[in-house]
């Protein structure tokens, strides 16, 4: 429980840092750290397959996508950077206050600690659930992947007339 709480605190701090840091590459790195911590938490919550997906796809692939988009943007001057940092601070100074207040308020609320849990299911193998019970989800995933690939292809299609 102590390790879980520490991991949760690290998760919240890394999420906060992702939002608060004014530079986008650092923000992307913060997101990758958040994903990595989340995958450790998932692993501890008996979900190893989802944790592997989270680590390889969210911490790896999505961070690479973000870094490549950011690298395509032009560099800004030091003066502009200072101005942007000040603007950023003015926009986001309230967020840590809101987070701290929400944490205190939720602690004071004393969420119900006793609730009836459903019975243990018969089948608890993710492969069987995924391929037998939730096969329509897989079909949906394939359709969404194709739609995404088609969407990206359309976005970057060269026009014939220039």
């Amino acid at each position, binding site marked *: 429980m102590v390790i879980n709480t520490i991991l949760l605190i690290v998760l*919240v701090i890394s999420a906060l840092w992702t*939002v608060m840091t004014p530079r986008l590459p650092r923000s992307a790195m913060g997101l990758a750290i958040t994903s990595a911590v989340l995958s450790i938490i998932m692993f501890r919550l008996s979900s190893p397959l989802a944790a592997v997906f989270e680590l390889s*796809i969210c911490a790896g692939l999505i961070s690479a996508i973000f870094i490549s988009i950011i690298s395509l943007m032009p560099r800004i001057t030091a003066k502009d950077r200072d101005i942007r940092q000040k603007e950023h601070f003015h926009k986001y100074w309230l967020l840590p206050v809101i987070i701290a207040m929400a944490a205190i308020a939720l602690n004071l609320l004393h969420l119900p*600690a006793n609730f009836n*849990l459903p019975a243990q299911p018969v089948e608890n193998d*993710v492969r069987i*659930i995924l391929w037998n019970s939730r096969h329509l*989800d897989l079909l949906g995933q394939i359709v969404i992947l194709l739609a995404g690939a088609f969407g990206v292809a359309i976005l970057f299609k060269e026009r014939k007339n220039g």
Partner: protein
Amino acid sequence: MSQLFCVFSIGIVLVFIAGLYCLIATLNLIRAIIGLELLTKAVTLFIILAGYVTGRTALAQALAITLIVIEVVVIAVAAGVILCVFRHNKSVNGRLLRNIKG
């Protein structure tokens, strides 16, 4: 188990608030996607937590994997849209999207 659920719920709400604030406060489209990512992470963790608490980790993992796949596709398409916006406007400021006709 119930205590774990309560503690994790608080953390999930805090990550969700961070993502939502980022999405609302920013005009930078890249940062908006980062906020969206944080929102999705909070939801993913909540699904996994619900599965762990109720003893249905397999179902929760199946749903989380589906969510991760959808998340990647959304990010890839959004990245493409941002690049197109940048090509046209030479900026990734979301305010410039208000000039779109229609």
